[in-house]
């Protein structure tokens, strides 16, 4: 297996992009990534998109996006793993380069979510859960994560305030990220007084609906060195795992087992352990998700994720900064693009282009991108050389 490097990243404005169609949103990000990489050709591409069909009525975006990027006839594939589609695109690109099948691969993610109303968006997102056994009974994603939050509070004494602190921290980081959809700070009180969505989760516990795309260019480390890239951003671990789709099938709903398994695989491949990681981007689709995930990644003991946030261990200055980009909460969550945007934050940190949110001496970074209530998960570990 060849070593793989990330040589270019691109991300344009995120938010409510009323004036732009899906193809334009993607092509803008992809061209930025290609320009950043300084390459003249792409051998293949992988695009993560959770539900372009339900959001904009467009399937077959693999060819559509290659077409509008001016890249036909290259092989192009759309990959889907709900909110982990972007992370999956990265892994497919990684495998493609590592195997020797392709030299230069574009990986990206895109979602255009605001062309539909709130009800339709809730339905589209709900398809990441088990339609027949969960959704038909009326549950929505905030409802499922509310159950997880209640269980975590009950089992480990996690408090309402600790969950709020996740949002406060991520917004503080996001306020330092010009690319964030909501780049402003909030307080614990703001979270606790925001509109109740699904008890105990309130509006400011939930990541937003976002239009956006992100893209990155991968190639063998050898080639990256020839191109004189500095620093070399290496993908040293890739872990992918699945778990029960339906929440009720899980043995412990507070334990994202696919995340734990994917992390185990990524740690093994990279020969790293939790203590080696300098910073991590995780899938905080809801505040409680970040708490559960940091435990499953082995960064904190089981049940201690809430307390870790309260102690400031996950803040920018803490022991292990989590979501320096602002996370899904502040940066935005165009579901298919999220997994790639996480990687972009890693590259920015390694290049020391993160401005006020720069993590000092960041050498090893990790991303965790999760689908649904944890039915699928991608964990990647990166090293700066």
């Amino acid at each position, binding site marked *: 297996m060849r070593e793989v490097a990330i040589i270019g990243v691109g991300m344009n404005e995120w938010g*409510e992009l*009323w004036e732009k169609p899906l193809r334009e949103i993607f092509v803008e990000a992809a061209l930025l990534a290609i320009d950043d990489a300084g390459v003249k050709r792409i051998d293949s591409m992988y695009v993560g998109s959770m539900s372009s069909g339900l959001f904009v009525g467009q399937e077959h975006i693999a060819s559509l996006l290659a077409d509008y990027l001016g890249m036909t006839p290259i092989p192009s594939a759309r990959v889907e793993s709900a909110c982990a589609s972007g992370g999956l695109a990265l892994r497919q690109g990684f495998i493609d380069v590592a195997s020797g099948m392709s030299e230069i691969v574009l990986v990206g993610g895109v979602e255009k979510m*605001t062309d539909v*109303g709130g009800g339709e968006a809730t339905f589209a997102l709900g398809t990441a859960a088990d339609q027949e056994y969960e959704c038909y009974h009326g549950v929505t994603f905030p409802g499922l994560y509310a159950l997880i939050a209640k269980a975590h509070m009950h089992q480990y004494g996690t408090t309402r305030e600790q969950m709020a602190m996740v949002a406060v921290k991520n917004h503080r980081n996001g306020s330092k990220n010009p690319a964030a959809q909501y780049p402003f700070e909030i307080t614990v009180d703001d979270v606790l007084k*925001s*509109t109740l969505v699904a008890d105990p989760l309130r509006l400011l516990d939930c990541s937003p609906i976002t239009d956006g795309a992100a893209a990155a260019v991968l190639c063998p480390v050898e080639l990256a060195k020839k191109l004189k890239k500095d620093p070399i951003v290496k993908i040293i671990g890739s872990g992918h795992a699945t778990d029960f789709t339906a929440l009720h099938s899980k043995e412990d709903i507070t334990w994202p087992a696919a995340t734990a398994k994917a992390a185990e695989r990524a740690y093994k491949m990279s020969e790293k352990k939790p203590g080696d990681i300098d910073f991590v981007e995780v899938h905080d689709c809801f505040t409680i998700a970040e708490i559960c995930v940091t435990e499953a990644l082995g960064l904190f003991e089981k049940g201690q994720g809430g307390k870790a946030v309260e102690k400031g261990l996950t803040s920018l200055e803490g022991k292990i900064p989590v979501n320096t980009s602002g996370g899904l909460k502040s940066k935005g969550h165009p579901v298919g693009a999220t997994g790639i945007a996480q990687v972009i934050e890693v590259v920015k940190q390694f290049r020391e282009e993160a401005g006020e949110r720069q993590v000092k001496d960041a050498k090893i970074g990790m991303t965790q991108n999760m689908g649904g209530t944890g039915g699928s998960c991608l964990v990647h570990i990166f090293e700066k050389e």
Partner: protein
Amino acid sequence: MTGIVGYGAYIPRYRIKVEEIAKVWGADAPAYKKGLMLEEKSVPFPDQDTITLSVEASKNALQRADIDPREIGAVYVGSESHPYAVKPSGTIVAEAVGANPDCHCADFEFACKAGTEAMYVCYGLVKAGEFKYGLAVGADTSQGAPGDALEYSASAGAAAFIFGKEKVFAEVEATYSYMSDTPDFWRREYQYYPQHGGRFTGEQAYFKHILGAARGIIEKTNAQPEDFNHVIFHQPNGKFPLKVGKMLGFSREQIEAGLLVPKIGNTYSGSSPLGLTAVLDIAKSGERILIVSFGSGAGSDAFIFRVTERINEVRDKAPKTREMIDGKKFYVDYGTYAKFRGKILKG
């Protein structure tokens, strides 16, 4: 100079509180009250509709104008809740106020800006000399689907204006219109309740068009925000007009006199026109007023008025708008409201 010679308002006496609606739907009343600055809204009685509200407001306008109704050469009613799909509201209003039969009559519809649209056309034809006086009304008994965010604001009310060249107390200094094809809110034929594009109704619809019309009229007249004593914007909730006012450089004080939505809700075609009646109730001679409506679909009409001495002679001749808002009123529960609005029908 052409302008307003008579104005009148009408607001039904029934009200429902935000808490009462929120209670039924398990919604967060404090969030609606704080976020949208809505407290309560007017509810039409079962025997009231756009036509009866228009007649009431028109009668008040006629009392102030003190003219022979037979001199009214046009009756224009703007609404998105005309009781008939085919058959005008305006003919009934014209007959009721005695303006018929030598009269041009038309109904207007352009979501919430149908009222100012009627005013715009009426003013233009009076200015052109087509008829001596013209009556323009904005009225609605607006619809909000049960449980929809609109249900907290969709209310009822009417404002009527008589335009002429004699006895003018609010001269029209300028007009401006701004529109685009923007599907932010609509109701198709045979549908009872409108649909809307959620957050798309904000920046891309309300703000874009109000800013377009307001900036257009300000530029056209070389005016500055401080040149206006009062400004009125369409009021779908309390937050939007204050926000758009701030974006244009107006102070809260300039907006407050005409801001009625927290107490009566969004009267749709009556919304900014009713705000204008409340401002005329207190305006002083020489003051300048800017009004900018908004209608989904979408567009905005803007007018600049200059108030004359004559305002002091007419304003007390009919009930004032704030008196109707703060005067005798009856609160209804959701069940009564649902019956009044035809949301439930007797089996």
